[in-house]
């Protein structure tokens, strides 16, 4: 369970935790789009500052948030290399046989690195501060308009909540089965690639068997209680926007406007340019 930190709820009961999950979901959605719009280093700096303040308010330790990147570290590294090698624009700085690295390439790959890092950290902030139940409630509430075009929103929500609910259970199950097979001398950590894949079979087969068994039992339990997703159901905890929610709307809008200014009116790029020329001059 070493890389389990990605997306595990981190209870601190902070202001961010108490926000309406719909607010957090909408913010994350807007945030994700916006991170892709940013054009300048200034823009990334501002976004990073916003994210940092969210992390500070949420009282989730930075160390834990940073750890969530570990899961995608390989991806980050991979995109960095690919962009460096294949994005060729501007002056060439380094050339060796088929490799040539350009100023544009360096610029683009660094920005992509920032983009992905901010994206992953922002998304994991959502799951650090929101329980899976809240999340599905929010999703259901936000997708509600789709019911008018006959999208089974409630069914989708319940499927999602079941899926989320069973992730930790299956993780635990995997751990148990791994232990059981290790106790029988299974060697999971060494050997060639194919040997290792083969060594996973004693874990995967029991895992699938138990996942299907659980699914069966759950279906029976739902049936036994006459569960019916299509009827109108009431909620124990009604979602309600509060003062902090309205405040975060304002912050989100200001943030979005700033980034759009940066993207379409080159505000940040202008400052970038100033800073660069200052560095070059020095």
């Amino acid at each position: 369970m070493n890389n389990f930190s990605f997306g595990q709820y981190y209870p601190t009961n902070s202001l961010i935790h108490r926000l309406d999950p719909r607010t957090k979901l909408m913010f994350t959605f807007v945030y994700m789009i916006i991170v892709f719009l940013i054009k300048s280093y200034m823009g990334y700096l501002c976004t990073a500052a916003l994210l940092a303040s969210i992390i500070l308010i949420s009282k989730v330790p930075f160390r834990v948030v940073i750890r969530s990147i570990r899961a995608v570290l390989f991806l980050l590294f991979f995109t960095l290399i690919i962009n460096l090698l294949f994005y060729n624009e501007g002056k060439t700085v380094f050339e060796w046989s088929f490799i040539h690295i350009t100023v544009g390439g360096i610029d683009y790959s660094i920005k992509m690195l920032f983009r992905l890092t901010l994206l992953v950290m922002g998304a994991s902030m959502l799951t650090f501060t929101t329980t899976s139940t809240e999340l599905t409630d929010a999703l259901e509430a936000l997708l509600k308009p789709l019911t008018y075009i006959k999208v089974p929103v409630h069914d989708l929500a319940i499927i999602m909540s079941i899926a989320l609910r069973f992730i930790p259970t299956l993780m635990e199950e995997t751990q148990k089965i791994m232990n059981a097979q290790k106790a029988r001398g299974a060697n999971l950590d060494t050997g060639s690639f194919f040997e290792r894949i083969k060594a996973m079979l004693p874990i995967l087969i029991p895992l699938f068997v138990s996942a299907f068994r659980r699914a069966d039992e759950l279906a029976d339990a739902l049936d036994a209680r006459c569960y019916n997703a299509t009827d109108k159901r009431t909620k124990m905890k009604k979602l309600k926007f509060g003062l902090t929610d309205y405040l975060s709307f304002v912050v989100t809008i200001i943030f979005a406007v700033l980034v759009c200014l940066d993207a379409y009116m080159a505000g940040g790029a202008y400052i970038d340019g100033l800073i660069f020329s200052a560095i070059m001059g020095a």
Partner: protein
Amino acid sequence: MSIVVKNLQFTYSANSPYETRALKDVNLTINEGDFLGIVGHTGSGKSTFIQHLNGLIKVQEGEIEVFDIKLTNVKKPKPDLRKLRSHVGMVFQYPEYQLFEETVYKDVAFGPKNLGLSQEEINDRVKEAIELVGLDYEKYKDRAPFELSGGQKRRVAIAGIIAMKPKVLILDEPTAGLDPSGKEQILSLIKNLKEKCSPTIIVISHDIDEITRFANRLVVFNDGKVAFDEPMKELFKHQQELVEMGLDIPLAIKIANELKAKGIKLGENIVTMSDLLREIVIAYNKKNGTDIDVSKIRKSVFNFDFSNSNQEEVFKDE
């Protein structure tokens, strides 16, 4: 001495809000030939403890010596885990969930194969193990494990462990989820295994009535520590403390307490139902001058023979 544990400590998810100290300071020596019962309620650290014994959990703090293999938090030299796991067999809760092969034979052979034994040796061990758990080798070896009944699956899973011929066998809740007759079968199987396969057996159980029927030494875990470590008959002198820890005491003791409170004179050393029966018959004989034979009643009441060595001795005394 087969296993020596010194100052063992363990913390789950250190430095996170989910941090839990599972083991606080565990010291325990397990001798060869022990039939050790471990009790303690959920979260007392007993499962964490036994997983240390065959290296499934790395030692954070403290020291374990299993036969000649030393387990510490020092990274080098690495302990020989394969050898350790061939010495200490572990049967987890619901072991049937770990079955994965197409046939019973292949599944039981998984462990010995991992030990790197020769094909002949594997053959012999698989046959022996399947027969030890009370299944007909020829009849079951080619059946798919998934089509067996619950109790049979569990026995195949246990066979998969004992085919590795461990000197110490650890069983975590071996009778969980079985019907009464399945339970009896597994219990008599465990007793049988002690004689024929693994001389040292450690059993975790929630069911105090069950564990007192065979263990000769009981270790009580409470809050990450060993609260009591006593011979089976001695442990229940601490009845009061056990109840305070939220543990159950054997039904026979409860009945004996009630009877004593009503003025019926019963002897000491009552732990199991068979003890209780003996004392009641003795008390009855004394009072009415009759001469009823305890062993005859015992035989007809307990149709499975679960008399363990302790009880055997008691009967010899009479």
